[in-house]
């Protein structure tokens, strides 16, 4: 037929060569899509992580917000509203607590002379009794429903009382054991 090429027959050698040449090639060294060798990189990262974790002391901090120290009372008050006016003075022997203008006596039940909360025996000798101070603050707050909205306390201390004791006192006055708010707003009194 016109225009039709005569079918050329392939011999055995040609067929063998076609099979050989058409076989998928194994990628040559350096030609294959090589995996990135990340082992040294991971070694470095691990070392850095270990170094950071070992050296950086992870300290979680918080801040207690306060106002400048005031001389005298805790500000102007409406004379008609009865207020507790809680003041805690930290002395070397314990806590002196003043409320409603009077000194709270030992045991935190009535007004009278003495320290409201004394020191107790602890593992390191005589220690401040923060639990009793917390209970005392709770008792005073619950004396009257007029005091339930009162959240401010004046904290004062002897000149030599360490800052840690002041902070722990503020912690003891902040919330009770049921996590109810007691006196979170602290004003520092001036110890002259």
């Amino acid at each position, binding site marked *: 037929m016109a225009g039709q090429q005569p079918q050329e027959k392939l011999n055995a050698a*040609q067929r063998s060569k076609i099979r050989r040449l058409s076989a998928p090639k194994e990628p040559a060294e350096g030609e294959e899509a090589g995996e990135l060798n990340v082992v040294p990189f991971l070694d470095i990262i691990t070392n850095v992580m270990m170094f950071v974790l070992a050296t950086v002391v992870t*300290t979680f901090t918080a801040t207690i917000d306060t106002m400048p120290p005031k001389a005298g009372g805790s500000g102007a008050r409406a004379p008609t509203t009865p207020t507790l006016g809680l003041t805690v003075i930290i002395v070397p022997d314990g806590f002196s607590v003043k409320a409603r203008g009077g000194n709270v006596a030992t045991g935190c039940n009535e007004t009278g002379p003495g320290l409201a909360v004394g020191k107790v025996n602890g593992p390191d000798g005589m220690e401040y009794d923060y639990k009793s101070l917390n209970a005392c603050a709770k008792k005073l707050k619950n004396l009257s429903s007029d005091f339930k909205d009162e959240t401010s306390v004046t904290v004062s201390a002897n000149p030599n009382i*360490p800052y*840690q004791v002041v902070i722990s006192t503020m912690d003891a006055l902040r919330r009770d054991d049921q996590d109810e708010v007691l006196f979170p707003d602290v004003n520092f009194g001036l110890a002259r």
Partner: protein
Amino acid sequence: MATYKRELRKEIKRRAQEPEINFLNITAMLDMMTIILVFLLKSMSQSSANIPQSSDLTMPKSTLTTEASQEGVAVLVSKTNIVVDDSAVVPVPADPTHGIEGKYKRSGPNDLYIVPLANALQSWRERDRQIRAATGKDPSFSEAIIIADAGTPYRLLVEVLFTLGQAEFSRFHLMVLQGAKK
């Protein structure tokens, strides 16, 4: 010859294999890890970790668990110095139960006003006043972060707070360490 070439092309095409992915590409994941690591290092260095904890300054512990405020000038009260903005302004005496030495006070040892501290705070206060006014905050006061040693006596603490109050700083953030036992 033409047939041979045609057959070869056909056969190559027929036997060609799709390249398969036979390994996990973790490069993208490592990129992410590196970014996270850098971010962690940066944020850790910016937060509380940069507060030096040494025998000279050990912050008190508190049961408080709220986040620390980062606003205000940092005033460090260590066992040896009072530091404002990384520069020591006044030395703390060996026995600080009576506060700073009288020669640094406005009118003798019984005064609470520490003159070098107030002077150091003045420039900061001026700058902060302008920033607060520009950012719509109340410019009538500034804030301060007090980082004091746990053993700082109350007298010295009050002197620092009083001086800050006199320099128109009326909101203090007392920095403490979390984790004290209740």
